[in-house]
């Protein structure tokens, strides 16, 4: 299978005052079409920076990223942010249709697509509500629907469940798996939560503390379609521990440099 996403030797240096800050140090990663990759690392390891480089929001200092396109008129990527990045002045419908609107998709068509995704994330009764009327979990469903409705080549998710409480997270992880099954897009998913990464991903990539490098990767053995029940599998706990073993030193190192 050819690579859908090709990250080659990406380095990111922030000039800053005094010492320049190396956020990413020669990171290379290939993601085949249809793979769900989770990037795990300690706080401040540059995993979000990597995602922003992929999304074209931040330029890299050296190296290159490429996303294979192909379908005419479709965007290369859509980004799911942490909780508060949906627009408070737009209704749920307008938020979900936003990407399509920016690409000039006609109103009836974009609203039909948006309604479909709003239904899939279970917000059908809130189509014309504003974000302030929604709970945190519902808002993030809007953010997820906005990315899916845009029908990109790859989905990029930056700790999308990071701001939610533990129970809402579990519910949304299950929903995310179900949504992803519909067309199995290529996903790069950044998180600091190991169990979230194992539950969702085909592969878990571990990053070091700053400067961010790729440290190790782990294949996730659980079959698709998958649900929250795999968390009860002894192999889940085993893999979780194995990843934590590799991550622990980095997390401690990150605490040291940040203090």
């Amino acid at each position, binding site marked *: 299978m050819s690579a859908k996403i090709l990250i080659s030797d990406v380095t990111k240096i922030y000039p800053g005052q005094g010492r320049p800050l190396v956020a990413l140090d020669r990171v290379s990663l290939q993601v085949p079409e249809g793979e769900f990759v989770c990037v795990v690392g300690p706080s401040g390891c540059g995993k979000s920076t990597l995602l922003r480089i992929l999304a074209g929001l931040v330029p890299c200092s050296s190296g290159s990223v490429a996303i294979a396109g192909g379908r005419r008129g479709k965007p290369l990527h859509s980004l799911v942010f942490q909780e508060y*990045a*949906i627009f408070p002045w737009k209704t749920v419908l307008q938020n979900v249709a936003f990407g399509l609107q*920016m690409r000039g998709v006609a109103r009836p068509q974009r609203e039909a697509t948006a309604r479909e995704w709003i239904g899939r994330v279970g917000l059908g009764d809130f189509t014309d509500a504003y*974000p302030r009327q929604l709970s945190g979990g519902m808002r993030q469903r809007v953010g997820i629907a906005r990315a899916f409705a845009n029908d990109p080549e790859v989905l990029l998710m930056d700790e999308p469940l990071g701001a939610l409480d533990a129970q809402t997270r579990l519910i949304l992880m299950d929903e995310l798996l179900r949504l992803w099954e519909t067309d199995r897009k290529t996903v790069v998913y950044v998180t600091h939560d190991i169990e979230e990464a194992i539950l969702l991903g085909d592969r878990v990539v571990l990053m070091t503390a700053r400067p961010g490098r790729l440290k190790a990767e782990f294949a996730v053995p659980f079959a698709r379609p998958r649900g929250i029940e795999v968390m009860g599998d002894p192999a889940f706990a085993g893999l979780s521990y194995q990843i934590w073993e590799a991550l622990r030193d980095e997390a401690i190192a990150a605490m040291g440099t940040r203090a």
Partner: protein
Amino acid sequence: MSDPRRDRMLALGAPAFLVGLWEVAIRTGVLDARFFPPPSLVVLTFWRLLADGTLAAHTAASVTRVLAGFAIGAAAGLAAGLAMGTIRSLRVALEPTISALYVIPKVAILPLVMLIFGLGEASKIAIIAIATFFIVVINTTAAVVGVEPLYIEAGRAFGARRLQMFAHIILPGALPAIFTGMRLALGTALIVIIAAEFVAAKDGIGYFIWFAWNTLRPEEMFAGFIVIGALGMLSYEAVRRIGHRVMPWLEDDRPRGGREDHG
């Protein structure tokens, strides 16, 4: 514990009590009736002036000036503020000058404005426009600059181009703070027009109050105060309602006792 009926009784009862106290204080000679006409006389005078059309004519003159000046000043301030907020070099070039001019009380330059625009309506409209402009331009610039960067990033991530970014993200994101500026400006416009009419008009509520002083009729002065108070309340309510229309996504900001203070 809040009981809405008790709250309403307190809110209406307290001012009624104060007015009663005022009346009693004059009748018993504690307050000097030459400066503080009894409320009963003020109300009678107010009705008389309302019935013979005096107050209506003066109010219309003041309101016309405020609306004309506010429209000009707010439109110019909005356009300049949006431009300065969006274009960094423009902001860097103009912000110090505008901030410096902003702190000059607008009433202070009234003589200069009269020198330039003459004694007619133009000078009154101009001074209102100037006062409005500075408040709106400063608040609009700050509003645009203050739009949450995350929303701008989300716009870029979904491919918004320059004009789309402005229409879908910058403008709606800045609107609440822009409206705060408008509300402030309208309040200031009311102050400025009264001051301008004290010295430079032959009609208007400001002139009416000044004339009442000159002719030693304090009860007419107080009738003028009632009109100004009503105008202030009406304009505040009007801006609030328009804001609610234009920004339906916001929580209603109707002030409620003990929760928020809208100065």
